[in-house]
């Protein structure tokens, strides 16, 4: 609170209280109807659309003075977007920030869910560019709303069908559509499908905000989240041949990092906090420039 | 006894039928055609409509088939499934379609060729429509076309490009393939050579022997003499003079 006092021009957590109440009401409705996109009066934020304006508004509305905030972008705490948003809330709300998943009460994220399992009491805020899972097949908003209302979801399988017809398998790797509580089809935001199973029956509250599209939706704790698929082409997450070159973690989502201009590369945890924690625990990867040959990603098939 | 009654009872009973055309494109000009048409048609009987050209023979045939509407009178047709006489003149389309399906068939003067459909399928179609397996229907169609001396090379081709005589033989085969109890023939032999004409005459005789009632127009007097059990002079019904 001290910093906020130092900046009297701003209300706590940037948004005025009326706006926060409006957003909280929307969030409550979203929680009451899991997976349903609730429209809200998205505000102009001091950042461009596409940089997390939806997530920031949701975070601002749920943030309290005693919360501990973590912000990740592509799994990392140290990328530009993550650093700026963390600094923003440290300044306008004076809340404590952290990079530790286990210590955070609110985690705002773009593109990833942490590898460390989420706990009851934690809230994840997703930044969502396009909340409508049917958008690319049905451009009319009036029509997609009716389709959601009447549970007409054949179209979403058309997209998966096209994937199999073209690639021999479901090639959608991110923003992979899910069905929530057997009712609404939802876009999980552009997280890799690797993270989809983590949403299922998660003890944490999951909130999704899309600033440009002015939609908020939510998954209350322990909600059923099922990735859509075909009987003969069941949903599968990506698997990786390699372990993390730095911390030797297996079964985690890896990023490819180019290390030189001679084709040298290595695969490391996309979740930087997870990787650092393992290294402080003494795990050591084989991340030496000489033995990276058999690393490589193998897609789900 | 009941069976005997049905087998000799009239299959078609026309009474008081009148027909005129109103030509709205010519200022509502009335063209009377026939009036007070009345006759019966019994099983195994071949009634030939006689009289000069334009007297209304074709119009009567078309009215009996439901193709032309009537201004007055009744056309009772015995429904083969129920055995009852049904009035076709009221023109209810579904009644007419029902009667055409099983009770009354018509061989027109010209084949109305359907694009892209082969001759053999054109002939087999009425059987298929009545639920007979396509293979069996096609076999019977082929047998009929062979009997009518249509070159087998033509069986698989659509009749649109056939000669007049070839088309007419396809048309006859199509009309004769079913066992409708009433058969209406509009000059079926008009464009046939002597050989094929004799085949058609033989086919008509077989139909009559089997109890089919035939009402037809035949300008060809040898054919008429060969098959007619009775001639009905349509001049008696003509409404032209009256007008």
């Amino acid at each position, binding site marked *: 609170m001290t910093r906020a006092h130092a900046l009297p021009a701003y209300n706590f957590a940037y948004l005025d209280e009326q706006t926060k109440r409006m957003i909280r009401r929307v969030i409550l409705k979203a929680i009451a109807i899991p997976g349903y996109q609730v429209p809200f009066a998205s505000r102009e934020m001091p950042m461009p659309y596409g940089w997390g304006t939806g997530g920031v508004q949701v975070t601002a509305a749920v943030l309290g003075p005693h919360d501990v905030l973590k912000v990740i972008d592509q799994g990392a705490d140290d990328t530009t977007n993550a650093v700026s948003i963390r600094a923003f809330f440290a300044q306008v709300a004076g809340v404590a920030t952290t990079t530790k998943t286990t210590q955070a009460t609110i985690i705002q994220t773009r593109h990833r869910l942490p590898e460390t399992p989420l706990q009851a009491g934690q809230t994840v805020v997703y930044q969502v560019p396009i909340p409508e899972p049917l958008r690319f097949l049905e451009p009319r908003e009036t029509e997609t709303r009716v389709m959601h209302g009447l549970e007409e979801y*054949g179209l979403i399988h058309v997209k998966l*069908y*096209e994937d*199999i017809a073209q690639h021999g398998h479901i090639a959608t790797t991110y923003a992979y559509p899910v069905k929530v509580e057997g009712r609404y089809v939802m876009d999980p935001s552009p997280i890799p499908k690797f993270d989809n199973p983590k949403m299922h029956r998660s003890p944490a509250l999951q909130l999704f905000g899309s600033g440009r599209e002015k939609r908020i939706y939510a998954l209350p704790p322990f909600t059923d989240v099922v990735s859509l698929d075909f*009987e003969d082409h069941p949903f599968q997450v990506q698997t990786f041949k390699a372990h993390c070159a730095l911390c030797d973690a297996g079964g985690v989502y890896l990023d490819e990092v180019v290390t030189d201009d001679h084709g040298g590369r290595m695969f490391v945890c996309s979740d930087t906090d997870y990787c650092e924690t393992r290294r402080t625990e003494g795990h050591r990867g084989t991340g030496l420039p000489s033995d990276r040959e058999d690393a490589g990603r193998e897609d789900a098939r | 006894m009941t069976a005997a009654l049905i087998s000799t009872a009239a299959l078609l009973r026309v009474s008081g039928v009148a027909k005129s055309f109103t030509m709205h494109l010519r200022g509502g000009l009335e063209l009377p055609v026939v009036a007070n048409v009345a006759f019966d048609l019994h099983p195994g009987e071949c009634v030939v409509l006689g009289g000069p050209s334009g007297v209304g023979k074709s119009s009567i045939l078309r009215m009996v088939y439901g*193709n*032309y509407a009537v201004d007055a009178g009744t056309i009772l047709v015995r429904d083969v499934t129920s055995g009852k006489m049904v009035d076709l003149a009221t023109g209810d389309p579904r009644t007419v*379609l*029902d009667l055409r399906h099983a009770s009354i068939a018509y061989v027109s003067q010209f084949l109305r060729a359907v*694009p892209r459909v082969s001759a053999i399928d054109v002939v087999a179609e009425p059987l298929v429509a009545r639920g007979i397996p396509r293979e069996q229907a096609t076999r019977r169609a082929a047998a009929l076309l062979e009997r009518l001396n249509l070159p087998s090379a033509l069986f698989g081709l659509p009749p649109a490009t056939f000669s007049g005589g070839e088309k007419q033989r396809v048309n006859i085969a199509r009309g004769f393939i079913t066992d409708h109890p009433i058969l209406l023939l509009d000059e079926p032999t008009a464009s046939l050579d002597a050989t094929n004409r004799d085949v058609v005459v033989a086919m008509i005789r077989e139909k009559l022997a089997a109890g089919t009632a035939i009402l037809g127009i035949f300008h060809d007097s040898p054919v008429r003499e060969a098959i007619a059990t009775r001639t009905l002079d349509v001049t008696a019904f003509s409404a032209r003079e009256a007008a």
Partner: protein
Amino acid sequence: MSSQPILSVRNLERRYGAFIGCTDISFDVWPGEVVAIVGESGSGKTTLLNCISGRMERSAGTVCYRMRDGRFPDLGDLSEAERRFLARTDWGFVHQNPADGLRMRVSAGANVGERLMAVGERHYGNIRRTATDWLERVEIAAARIDDQPVAFSGGMRQRLQIARNLVTHPRLIFMDEPTGGLDVSVQARVLDLLRMLVADLGLAVVIVTHDLAVARLLSQRMIVMKSGRIVEQGLTDRVLDDPRHPYTQLLVASIPES
């Protein structure tokens, strides 16, 4: 023949403000029967088609449809969910412009398979087999299954639209000038295909056309419309060979003989 109509229209009217789109329309459609609605542009035939297929609100009158379970409700009394379910299972709608009825940027296979997926089919192999089967029935090479309709000719697109509609074995198909935008040779192929499929599947069809040859070829019954009203209806061959109303006589007299 079934003794109960599948569709029953009574005193239907559609107004656009003071202008009458169609009025005083009553007719029935029975299972397995093709009914043609003919008339010139502006005669109200497409308005009528849209009203009876639930695509447009009517101003007055009733449109009852025989459901598979035998109920015969007015379409207006069904919920939107029921109406839309009917529209993608029990009914088909073939548009004049195939682009209106197809997803142009989705493969032919998915276009055909969409309705199956919409009713819950979740087996890719089965969907693909059924789609292949239907493409063959409408004379599209199975090898084209993964091509998008944008790469198809007009005739192929129209045949694809037909397959897409028939895959769920509908009972009633609405068609709006299905051969309207096609070359004559292509038209014949589509017509022939429609004729065969309608007969094989025992479909009830309401087809709007200004082409009397199409009406003669496909339909058993015909409704002639002028200025939003039915001026004559009856057996197709009867209406065409013995037209009674001045307008029908004009229509029939306007066909060039070939």
